[in-house]
């Protein structure tokens, strides 16, 4: 089948980048999106190089520095055990990045696989796969995630798996919908006519053309995933102490709210800034890729 790749199949590739350039230029007219991207880059750098930026070990107890308010020495203060809150927030970025990447990889990979299989093959395969997805969609996402944690047991890894799996049905539904619209296009027919097999058609022709709505969904989904995973940790169903996870830190801070406002302030601020940035970028990407919204 080596000759197949030489046959030009028109318009089977996703839209070329050059077609989007005017839209990219419009980015400069949306300063909040630029700010969000800068924040996300800072977040990723902090997460990747956390030990370089954190002034202290996130789990080390500093002798004689219990519940110190923010000062030049401890910018975000210290917690009830004398750990540096700034260092914990910086290391928390690393965990949140892991959560984001891991959960969305699960949701995106499984959701696309289910959706593209159901949409492409149709019939009984479609009926059965989507029936399972419909049932899972009958659960609110946080409830589904909690049910999965109930099965696997509370831990950060299980919480990440739970959040990822609980998002699969939404991705599967979107992936199926776009696959259905791509499947009947002429270039798929053309590829089949020149003798391409199912695997090749799916990978080379269907996948590149159905993926962008799913990717847009994923961009918005990272924020939701981080929120739900942090929520599970807040409830004690995710990251366990002494892990410097933002949700778990907020949970610990609750008991010291009266005396140590900083413990409850900075981890929450970190989550909010990251999620706001993700949502801003997600909205922008959606406008960019959704032709109906183009002016």
């Amino acid at each position: 089948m080596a000759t197949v790749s030489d046959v030009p199949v028109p318009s089977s590739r996703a839209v070329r980048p050059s077609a989007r350039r005017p839209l990219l230029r419009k980015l400069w007219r949306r300063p909040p999106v630029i700010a969000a991207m800068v924040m996300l880059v800072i977040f990723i750098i902090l997460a990747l190089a956390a030990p370089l930026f954190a002034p202290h070990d996130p789990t080390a107890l500093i002798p004689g520095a219990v519940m110190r308010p923010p000062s030049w020495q401890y910018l975000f203060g210290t917690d009830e055990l004398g750990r540096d809150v700034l260092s914990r927030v910086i290391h928390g970025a690393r965990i949140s990045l892991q959560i984001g990447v891991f959960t969305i990889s699960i949701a995106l990979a499984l959701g696309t696989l289910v959706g593209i299989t159901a949409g492409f093959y149709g019939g009984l395969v479609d009926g059965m796969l989507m029936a399972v997805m419909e049932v899972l969609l009958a659960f609110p996402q946080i409830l589904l995630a909690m049910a999965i944690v109930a099965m696997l047991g509370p831990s950060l890894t299980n919480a990440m798996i739970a959040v990822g799996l609980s998002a699969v049905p939404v991705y599967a539904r979107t992936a199926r919908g776009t696959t259905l619209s791509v499947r009947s296009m002429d270039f798929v027919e053309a590829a089949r006519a020149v003798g391409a097999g199912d695997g090749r058609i799916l990978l080379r022709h269907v996948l590149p053309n159905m993926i962008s709505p799913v990717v847009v969904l994923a961009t918005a989904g990272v924020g939701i995933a981080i929120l739900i995973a942090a929520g599970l940790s807040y409830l004690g169903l995710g990251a366990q102490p002494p892990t410097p996870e933002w949700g778990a830190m907020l949970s610990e801070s609750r008991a010291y709210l009266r005396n140590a406002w900083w413990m409850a302030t900075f981890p929450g601020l970190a989550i909010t800034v990251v999620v706001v940035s993700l949502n801003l970028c997600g909205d922008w990407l959606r406008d960019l890729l959704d032709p109906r919204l183009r002016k």
Partner: protein
Amino acid sequence: MRAFLVRRLFLLVPTVLGVTLATFLMLHLTPGDPVTIMLGEFASAADVARLRVELGLDRPLPVQYVKFLARALRGDLGTSIRSRRPVAEEIAERLPPTMQLALAAEVLAVGVGIPAGVAAATARIPAVDSTVVAVTLVGLSMPTFWSGLLLILLFSLTLGWLPITESQGLRALILPAVTLAAPAAAVLARVTRASVLEVLRQDYVRTARAKGVVERVVIYRHALRNALIPVLTVAALQFAGLVAGAVIVESVFARPGLGRLAVTAILSRDFPLAQGIVLVVATMYVFVNVGVDVVYGILDPRIRYR
């Protein structure tokens, strides 16, 4: 209309069956032996065997499912491992405070979100629109377990206006309801704004303006009525989400409720209790969805004939 109702209610059957099957399988898809997980590693062989029989785990899977279903239909959700009390009783006890919280949050979300969305879409001053858009973005992105803590910090600890320890009464409901309502109100405001903007572009709005109708009447009589249909759908669908979201808010404010019961059940590996809560909340979610569909059909005749 009747045909539509019958069809919609008929479609409910497979979904509810699916939900019960998924909940039933929770126990069986658990890696490892659920009985050992529940009783701990040091349980005696006799205890393990007894619980296995009590849960019916010695029977074939289909038989177990039919029994599970038959008992659930009679309102019997099994016995909690932790408290040895009927699961249905525990849930019935904790459901009212959760519903109270979710209802209060729904009222707040509708009362704040919809006017904010209308204001953003129709405001003549651009700053109003961009403020609403910015505030809703933050509202959507702020975790409730942080906004709740900040509200306690400000209104209870610093200003001393509202209690943190009480769990009864209307005053104790204010902060939790505001916390839970914030993301829902933000979503509603965004949906309302988009919907009103969409309707304002329609021909009949242009016609109304062209024949000289006052702008206020155009907005309230012509545009808003049509724009609100999808908004009300979202608002109603949010209710079930608020019940689920109450899990976290109850934990922040140390309120008794279904959410805290669920967390306790999961942490103590109490499978019958966890299954019961999941089943009850998911079934409610399904029924609310169908109810919304039916009301939508009544409001908008186009839906019925699809």
